[in-house]
């Protein structure tokens, strides 16, 4: 039995952007969301991941009873936390958008997400940064402490391996690059066009990189002018403060919006005014932000203005991804190999308490017998002899338990590992499994974190 990790969330595959933006959370509200999650007694550890294409809670249940029951309780708690997060009236309201994974599936999912195998743009590099940000926020909030933290760190390793051992991330395909391709199909050529980036975050940076020298001019408009200026200096662009947005829209042809604003930065009325002054010149908005930055009514109601959001680019992205399918297979192999290692380690967490208990019992019996004898028949022995006897007990314990310990650890990675654990517990009258499982993570973590680390590293 592995760790009962639970993942509940929604992504571009299960929910449209109108739904995803209700769940999305910026860094400012992340501590509050994490506090809400960890306040639940059913959840031991948790992480909240919010990107353009997904919002997920990765949780480790507090074990009470069987793993299945613990997972069910944690699942309910996470769904209720998500319900409160978006102010929905019931958990049922969320059902059609949410997916759930548990156990090995959940860990596989976390690995795949970090390795960008579940992204809209396969192999895009931004997701790893976003997972790392979510991880750091959870650690800072005290929501990640032990095994789930290790799971996420392991996901970073998986992502790194996929990146270095496959060509999944090769080339320049990203949401931004796909959006630029679409802009080209509207304008034909961007050499005589001005591109405006609204927002100066990671996505804007990717857009600026994709545009490279294709556009006549790149302008960056951001709430923080310093950040805009810094990005502009890096890409040879021109920076402008956000309050000059209207005048910037007048001289731009393609607008890539990627701010973290929770409301529309570019409204219908603003674009209506701008289009009048532009004398109807085409204006193309690519809204890669979630929540969206550009009012979708612009697309429906204003002539010569087009608004495309991340979901609209999905098909386009899928076309671009066809060439990467071979790399996907290689990356999936890495994920499976890492998952097998993880499972082995996680199963070891179940074996370790039994090994510790067996060792403690054996040594306890031997030491008790020795002390009894030393108190009666061997009272005359000096310190030196007593130390030698203690050493002998230690060696005897090690030699006696070497084979069973090795066999148990070997069996931990196998499907029948739990049977062997139960047999040992039964034969040696060790503490009942339920009692041990109460908090296996903590027990095992304390007992043999070093050993486990070593095994995983190997």
């Amino acid at each position, binding site marked *: 039995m592995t760790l009962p990790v639970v993942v509940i969330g929604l992504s571009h595959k299960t929910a449209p952007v109108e739904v995803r933006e209700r769940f999305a959370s910026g860094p400012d509200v992340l501590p509050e969301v994490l506090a809400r999650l960890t306040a639940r007694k059913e959840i031991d550890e948790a992480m909240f991941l919010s990107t353009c294409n997904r919002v997920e809670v990765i949780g480790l249940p507090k074990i009470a009873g069987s793993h299945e029951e613990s997972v069910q309780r944690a699942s309910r708690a996470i769904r209720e936390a998500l319900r409160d997060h978006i102010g929905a009236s019931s958990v049922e309201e969320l059902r059609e958008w949410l997916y759930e994974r548990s156990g090995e599936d959940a860990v596989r999912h976390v690995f795949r997400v970090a390795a960008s195998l579940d992204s809209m743009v396969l192999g895009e590099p931004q997701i790893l940064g976003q997972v790392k940000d979510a991880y750091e926020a959870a650690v800072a909030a005290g929501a990640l402490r032990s095994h789930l933290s290790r799971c996420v760190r392991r996901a970073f390793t998986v992502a790194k391996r996929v990146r270095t051992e496959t060509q999944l991330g090769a080339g320049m395909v990203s949401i931004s690059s796909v959006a630029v391709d679409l802009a080209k199909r509207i304008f*034909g*050529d961007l050499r005589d066009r001005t591109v405006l980036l609204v927002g100066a975050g990671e996505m804007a940076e990717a857009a600026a990189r994709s545009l490279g020298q294709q556009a006549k001019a790149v302008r960056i408009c951001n709430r923080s002018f310093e950040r805009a200026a810094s990005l502009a200096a890096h890409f040879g662009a021109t920076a402008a403060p956000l309050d000059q947005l209207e005048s910037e829209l007048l001289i731009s042809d393609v607008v890539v919006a990627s701010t973290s604003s929770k409301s529309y930065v570019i409204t219908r009325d603003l674009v209506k005014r701008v289009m009048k002054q*532009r004398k*109807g010149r085409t204006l193309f908005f690519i809204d890669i932000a979630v929540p969206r930055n550009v009012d979708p009514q612009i697309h429906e109601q204003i002539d*010569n203005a087009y608004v495309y959001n991340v979901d609209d680019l999905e098909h386009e992205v899928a*076309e671009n991804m066809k060439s990467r399918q071979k790399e996907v297979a290689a990356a999936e192999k890495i994920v499976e190999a890492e998952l097998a290692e993880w499972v082995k380690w996680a199963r070891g967490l179940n074996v370790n308490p039994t090994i510790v208990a067996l060792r403690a019992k054996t040594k306890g019996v031997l030491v008790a017998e020795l002390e009894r004898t030393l108190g009666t028949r061997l009272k005359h022995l000096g310190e030196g002899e007593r130390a030698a006897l203690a050493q002998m007990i230690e060696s005897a314990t090690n030699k006696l338990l070497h084979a069973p310990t090795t066999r148990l650890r070997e069996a931990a990675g196998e499907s029948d590992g739990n049977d062997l654990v139960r047999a040992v517990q039964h034969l040696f009258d060790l503490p009942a499994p339920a009692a041990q499982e109460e908090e296996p993570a903590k027990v095992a973590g304390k007992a043999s974190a070093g050993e486990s680390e070593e095994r995983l590293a190997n």
Partner: protein
Amino acid sequence: MMSEGIADALFYLTVATYVAASVLFLRFLTRGKGDVGVLGPRLIGAGALLHAGHIVIASLVLRRCPVEGIHFPMSVASMSMCVAYVLARKRYRIEVAGAFVAPLALTSLLASRFVGGGEEPGARIKSAILPFHVATNLFGVALFTLAFSAAALYLIQERLLKRKRIDGVFKRLPPLDVLDRAEHRFLVAGFPLLTIGIVTGTLWARHVEMGAPGEVLRAVFGYVTWLVIAGVLFLRAAAGWRGRRAAYGTIAGYAFSLVVLMIYLLRAPQPSAAVADEVEAPATAALALGSAEASSTP
């Protein structure tokens, strides 16, 4: 007789080439198959060459000026359109406009042969202005047909973009802005020719003084065509009428010009030249697309 045989052979070869080009372009648009970037324009170019050969030989056989009557002007107009397409398509990147150009050239060529209507103008209404009037209208129509093709493609492209259906056909059509620009440039190029056509038509109409209902209608629709296209160009410059509105305006202008042509083609043949002589109606402009000449039967 031999020249007539050659003219016929060239006619059918031209028809076959336009058919092949139409099939190629339509197959590309509907199924995304075939190479229209190179082969399509080449086929239309080859069709235009054969077409020109047909016009030259047929003129010699019939000893008729290519810009007189209705059949030849229609034929010359469609050939001019194909030549304009071949010359402009690379510059404006509108190769796919061949999907309109080839079928329209084919239709026009067939109509010039098989649809009744205009006959050789009577000697009474022949004038030095007539060939000039007809020639300018012909080239104007050729350019407007290209503007119409670009406008129609624009509307298709724009609709797909607004509906967010950016796969399939969308990818096969030229970029939206390229179509908008091409449409505007063809319109700008064709408008002076149309204007000259209108002016010469008015002068010529004074000369012949016609008044049959068909002639009046044709003249009225000729003026409406001019006004619509002038309006589209003016509103684009002054009020920012671009994209969809401009495309609708262009299509409307082209539709009016087609009405002029239809009136000409579908009118009942005039009984005789004597009828023309009897007509004493008020003078009206006789603008018609390459057919402003009166339709009296000798």
